[in-house]
């Protein structure tokens, strides 16, 4: 994650500090937001509400995890939410058709993995820009979901598909759903994979400087393809999370999911030019958005002003990134 290097015994400048720990900025923003909302409302700092905020961020937070991987390779995925919606419909329709929940779940995930493989192959073999590939796929998958569902929403009754949202236990008085637990495990697993394994180092290297990565013996194409496949698995699990939250597969749902996931990743300190970003930062980024929405709602702030605030925060985050980079150079 660290791209800045320290010369001798010099103390790091603020810029270097932010570059070395990209999650610090969003963590600070999160802290400030929580303090402000806790003081200005008496409903925000409530264990049930805090749990709720996390539950509300789960789908975008999971999508953002896959998005982080792709953005690390200097790519972008505009079709992740569309693929997820298609997967929710596949799962729901299979269950309605009599298939057991576990098979429906697995086949839904297989579908998103196949979509990931197609995207990855187009990006690596034909060298198409990820922006174009996923823009095209966004249209294709959205239409496919509507065709597949004949425009109708499909209610989900299967207990396994709803499991992530309905099953909960108490941890220190805080209600924790299985969806929250799974998301945490996924974040931990990916954090480990990215920071402690050769694969993770390859992902960063490929995003930073593909040519040098290739010269140092990293199989660039294979690494990028693997990223799209892993992201495909994550999108499939996001579909499961979505059904846990709203047990109703709707072809019109999550129209902004792709942009929300990009927002979370960028707020988390990742660079859209690749090679810089972290799983922890993305988690903070997703939580910042959810905390803002929840807190501002409880203050009675109009939803459109909430959009203004989120957008301004995003631009602010990129400004911090620029500032940090200029300090470094």
């Amino acid at each position: 994650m660290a791209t800045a290097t320290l010369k001798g015994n010099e103390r790091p400048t603020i810029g270097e500090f932010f570059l070395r720990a990209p999650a610090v900025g969003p963590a600070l923003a999160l802290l400030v937001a929580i303090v402000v909302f806790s003081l200005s409302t008496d409903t925000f700092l409530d264990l049930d509400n805090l749990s709720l905020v996390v539950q509300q961020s789960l789908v975008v937070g999971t999508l953002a995890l896959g998005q982080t991987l792709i953005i690390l390779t200097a790519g972008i995925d505009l079709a992740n939410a569309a693929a997820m919606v298609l997967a929710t419909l596949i799962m729901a329709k299979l269950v309605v058709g009599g298939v057991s929940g576990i098979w429906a779940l697995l086949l839904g995930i297989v579908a998103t993995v196949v979509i990931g493989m197609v995207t990855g192959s187009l990006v690596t073999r034909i060298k198409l820009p990820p922006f174009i590939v996923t823009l095209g796929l966004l249209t294709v998958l959205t239409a496919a979901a509507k065709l597949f569902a004949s425009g109708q929403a499909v209610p989900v009754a299967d207990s396994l598909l709803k499991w992530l949202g309905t099953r909960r236990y108490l941890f220190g008085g805080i209600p924790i759903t299985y969806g929250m637990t799974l998301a945490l495990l996924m974040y931990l697993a990916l954090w480990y994979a990215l920071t402690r394994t050769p694969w993770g180092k390859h992902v960063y290297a490929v995003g930073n400087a593909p040519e040098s990565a290739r010269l140092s013996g990293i199989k660039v194409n294979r690494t990028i393809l693997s990223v799209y496949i892993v992201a495909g698995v994550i999108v499939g699990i996001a579909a499961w999370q979505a059904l846990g939250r709203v047990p109703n597969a709707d072809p019109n749902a999550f129209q902004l999911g792709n942009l929300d996931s990009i927002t979370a990743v960028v707020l988390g300190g990742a660079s859209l030019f690749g090679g810089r970003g972290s799983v922890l930062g993305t988690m903070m980024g997703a939580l910042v958005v959810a905390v803002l929405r929840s807190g501002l709602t409880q203050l009675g702030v109009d939803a459109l002003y909430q959009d203004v605030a989120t957008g301004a925060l995003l631009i602010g985050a990129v400004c911090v990134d620029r500032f940090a980079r200029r300090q470094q150079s």
Partner: protein
Amino acid sequence: MRQRSLLALTLAAAVAATSVGACTVERHWGGGSNAGGGGKAKVGLVTKTDTNPYFVELRAAAKAAAEANGAEFNALAGQFDGDNDGQVRAIENLMQQGANTILITPSSSTGVLDAIDRARKAGVLVIALDTATEPDTAVDATFATDNFEAGRQQGAYVKAVLAGKPPKLFMVDGTAGSTVDTQRHTGFLKGIGLTDASPEIKGKTPANGDQSLAQQGVENLLQRTTDINAVYTMNEPMGRGTYAALQARGLVNQLVMGSIDGGCEGVKNVRDGQYAATVMQFPKKMAEQGVLAAVEYAKTGKKPSGFVNTGSAVITDKPIPGVESQDTKWGLENCWGTK
């Protein structure tokens, strides 16, 4: 040096933001029990979006009714039509804030049933406005336009204008599969005396309720045939798009077109002759009756039940014997949106 000043600035900003937040922000309501009976009404409204003029009217009417009846009021919405996740979030946040009645126009008739169920189990009165849920027993009561009946009225009017001539019909539909779309569509066919398989239907296009999509869709249909004498549009923005396409081909005088909604702009369209009739709905009534039910529930714990039809009326300046209607003057007095 630079580092320290930046840190100081950040801290100062944080403190300022905190104190401003604490001092000037108007609190809506605190947490507490959601159950009704013997208390003050805390009404939450959840609409599909908060930018559509129809929902703006619904919200304004609910807010006015809440103020007139001493009820607390908070309105939330999804970000786009179909944003089930956003509506579930809104329900959760309203419950968190202690609402004892939630009025909701569900984005999809099955989308938010789970969250509604949770709210009702917590003692919250839930009333569907405008759009019914499936099953309708998922909510305590539904205050809405009977959309099948609104469609039927439009179909009956168009049939009466055709005066026995066999219809040659274009149908401009809303979002494929949505409940309201289906009810209006089938109601219209019933009113005009056709079925989906009738050869009298010369073309259908879904346009998601959107004006420019409707225009494109009808332009494309007109490439196939211009031999039509009747047009169904599912709402007024699509009626305007359809009119633009028909006008460009010089067809507007050879046909009768109807729409549904009763927005002030739509009534003016009827007055100016863009289409022959529109069927008005009454979002203000839905909102007011919803708030009154909330006040009643908070006072006595009594819940309304079942489907309450808030009515619909044909608006036209070319009345036809046998079809009950109002003129556009009446329409402009009773329409919703900017007059």
